[in-house]
């Protein structure tokens, strides 16, 4: 029997997920023994046309990381869907939109204006914007089109499984690979490589009852060791974030940022966390509550740091929404 064929692809993401795959360490060797890696632009020299030439469903497993941010991301998502038996949204960007997804708080017009006109280091007196087609003496150059909205992978193609994390932790990645190789897979559409509870369940810090009268950003306070960070006024997303990382961040005194996404029964992680925090602000006075909440400079960016495109909000709508 031939070895299973595996593809890995990197769309709109930082590249951390690629590193996360390598992070399985020595186990990469038995992995490459067990499977054929047929497509991995980051690591092996292969062209898109070679994928296009494959049979449909020829790839057994595709780990797709990154959000869908431009026409190239979408084209590759559709191509890999067509060529793969199992398409896995690997990492927070593909699953939920993650940091690239925060672009949904702005329009394409605003983003391009900011990047090509407004920023102080820009020298662009003619106000030239990037074009999808540019004529040069040698012919026409084409660039992918930047989309107005960032999409998650499952908003453009059918997805079989989701692996959360920014990035997914190595052991979880290995567990998913093992499960696939052994054919030991849960129901389609499941989140794999994660727990069912929340980060607090794995967090070693001591929890009592929580009331918040002031929020601290991590640089504004040296937290007491061993005590729940949220109780100390440091925004920790552990209360609304799926377990699976073994509470890596809070274990070393840094607050959970929420990268493992919503727990199983939650469909909007940001809204749930806002609802929870709203319940524990220690004041009945609306003005004081406002003052406390003002200590959070960018609520949308904080509470929806990983999940905006995947949330009920999806994006900010404005009057000049379309450019």
């Amino acid at each position, binding site marked *: 029997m031939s070895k299973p064929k595996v593809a890995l692809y990197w769309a709109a993401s930082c590249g951390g997920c690629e590193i996360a795959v390598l992070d399985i360490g020595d186990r990469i060797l038995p992995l490459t023994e067990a499977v054929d890696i047929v497509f991995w632009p980051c690591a092996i020299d292969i062209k898109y046309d070679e994928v296009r030439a494959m049979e449909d469903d020829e790839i057994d497993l595709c780990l797709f990381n990154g959000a869908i941010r431009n026409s190239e991301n979408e084209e590759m998502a559709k191509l890999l869907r067509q060529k793969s038996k199992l398409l896995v949204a690997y990492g927070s960007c593909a699953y939920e939109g993650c940091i690239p997804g925060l672009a949904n708080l702005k329009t394409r017009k605003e983003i391009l204006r900011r990047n090509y006109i407004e920023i102080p280091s820009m020298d662009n007196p003619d106000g030239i914007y990037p074009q999808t087609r540019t004529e040069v003496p040698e012919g026409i150059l084409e660039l992918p089109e930047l989309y107005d909205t960032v999409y998650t992978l499952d908003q453009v193609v059918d997805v079989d499984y989701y692996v959360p994390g920014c990035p997914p932790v190595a052991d979880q990645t290995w567990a998913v690979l093992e499960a696939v190789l052994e054919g030991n897979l849960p129901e389609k559409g499941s989140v794999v490589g994660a727990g*069912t*509870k*929340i*980060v*607090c*369940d794995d967090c070693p810090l001591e*929890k*009592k*009852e*929580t*009331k918040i009268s002031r929020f601290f950003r991590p640089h504004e306070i040296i937290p007491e060791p061993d005590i729940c960070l*949220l109780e100390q006024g440091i925004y920790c997303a*552990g*209360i*609304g974030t799926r*377990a699976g990382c073994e509470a890596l961040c809070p274990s070393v005194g840094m607050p959970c940022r929420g990268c493992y996404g*919503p*727990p*199983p*029964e*939650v*469909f909007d*992680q940001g809204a*749930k*966390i806002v*609802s*929870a925090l*709203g*319940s*524990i602000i220690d004041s009945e006075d609306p003005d004081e509550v406002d003052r406390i909440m003002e200590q959070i400079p960018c609520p949308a960016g904080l509470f929806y740091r990983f999940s905006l495109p995947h949330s009920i909000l999806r994006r900010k709508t404005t009057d000049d929404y379309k450019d």
Partner: protein
Amino acid sequence: MKRIGVFVCHCGINIAETVDVKRVAEEAMKMEGVAYAQDYIYMCSEPGQTLVREKIVEEKLDAVIIAACSPNLHESTFRAAAEEAGLNPWQCEIANIREQCSWVHTDREKATSKAIHIVATIVQKTKLNESLEPIPVSITKKALVIGGGIAGIQAALDIADSGHKVILVEKESSIGGHMAQLSETFPTLDCSQCILTPKMVAAGKHPNIELMTYSQVDEVSGYVGNFKVRIRQKAAFVDWSKCNGCGLCMEKCPAKVSSVFDRELAKHGAIYVPFPQAVPNKPVIDKDSCIYFKSGKCRLCEKVCEIGAIDFEQEDRFIEEEVGAIITATGFDTLPVVDLAEYGAGEVPDVIDGLAFERLLSASGPTVGEVRRPSDGMVPKEIVFVQCAGSRDPERYKPYCSKICCMYTTKHALLYKHRVHDGQPYIFYIDIRTGGKGYEEFYHNAEEEEGIIYLRGKVAKIFRDGDKTVVWGTDTLTGRNIEIAADLVVLATAVVPKDSTAELVKKLRIQTGPNGFLAEAHPKLRPVESINSGFFIAGAAQGPKDIPETVSQASAAACKVISLFSRDHLEQDPAIAWVDEDLCGGCRICISVCPYDAREFDEEKGIVIVNEALCEGCGSCVAACACGATQQRNLSDSQIKSMVTASLGGV
């Protein structure tokens, strides 16, 4: 898939005039899961209910939706009807298309469309409704009444007479409250003490009433039928079990303390009973005024007490009790004169409040019923009574009407005329309100027969000039400014909640309204209940009221308690919060937000659990649970999500 029946009520024209009820039924019939839909003129009528019952059987319905008025009105009616036809009551839902639709709209087309959306929303909820069973809760048939004024006394007597035990807790050393301070009562002018003391004595002697005076509620936990209370009995420094009430100690005590009961118009010793008819008639030592406690010398009371009842070593005592219901009847205070800057801020000696004037009129008061002013004991020849002193003044003082002042001021003026025949009373008023049996007649008699001068207007300023107290006011009927050089001024100061009420409600976990008075569950239909089960309210702690109203409310609250105690066990609504053990990560945020202490951390399982008997189903924990482990039964997140989707027109 459930088979759901939808029954659309016309409510006469209440709904049908604005909403096309037939179309609502037709559209409902097209909704997924709806097996039957029909409209009817009065769904709550017997034929309407019969229709529901028959169709449940004929159409083999698993759930029904009544599109009608608010669930507050007829949810229980239709749940009972559904249960009679064999359905679980929690498979019956109300779609409110009256209060939330027909009554608030005029555009028939849009209102009909909204009604259809409301029905669609409830269909989504109903699809996912579980069948539930009420949670049985045992009940301790013993009541706690807090406050020993006329409200608390009446409530305690009524409950005790029904055969149940009552603990009556009073902060002062004697029961009686403000009513004991009054001289005569309007409009019949019967002596307040004479009608009150028999009830005080009855409460003191009743075998089912345990009187705990000089005591305060320290802590309350538990839930309806099963409260645990801790009561602190303050040290009286007198062993009441020995004291025979001879009063010798009080005669000999050399300290002089202003009497709170006599509104500081008289003095008593540091060891005292507040008034001669006190129940129990046992003295207490005011530690702050006692010469021995202050200087370490004296102990005169100890020397004269032949039976050795004085005990300077006594300490506060804590008593734990279990009760099934709690009535709060903590009464009122009046706005202090010192708070009223334009009326002399308490610095003008001959400006007193209504309760002080009661003491001056009282046969057992400091002047033995003779009206003599505080500054020099002179019998005043001209008295100005100022109504609404701090009431009906939203900018500076209290926005509400104190309700009893119109009547008691008229009574004061009348009793003054009866004592001082050549005296002249003036009453400044904004409006005279006489809504009570015999009240208007009482006022008319005073105005027409007794020579009391009523001046419609507010008093702007009161100040002292020689031995006179000058009142500046305006008569708004004639438009003239008025100046009266009076001998005495009596302010009808605003009725306010007791200072201690705010602290008490926190311990009890009951609510107050915007002005600090106890909040009732419903202003019209549940006036003597708190929102929280097992708590009842009576008397002026709930809002200003006169004696007959206070007594009626006290009896009503007692009746509610007796009705609660008539059952073998209580049934708790099962539509409360629950925790999915597989999801709960033990963050414990829900514990901090639960107003009923219904959540606790289970160390063994590492999760939070719900005490079903304590949970009132308020949903605070559901909102606070970021991991989605806590859900409200029959109002889960997935139900709400599909309801929101349906209400926005999606499916």
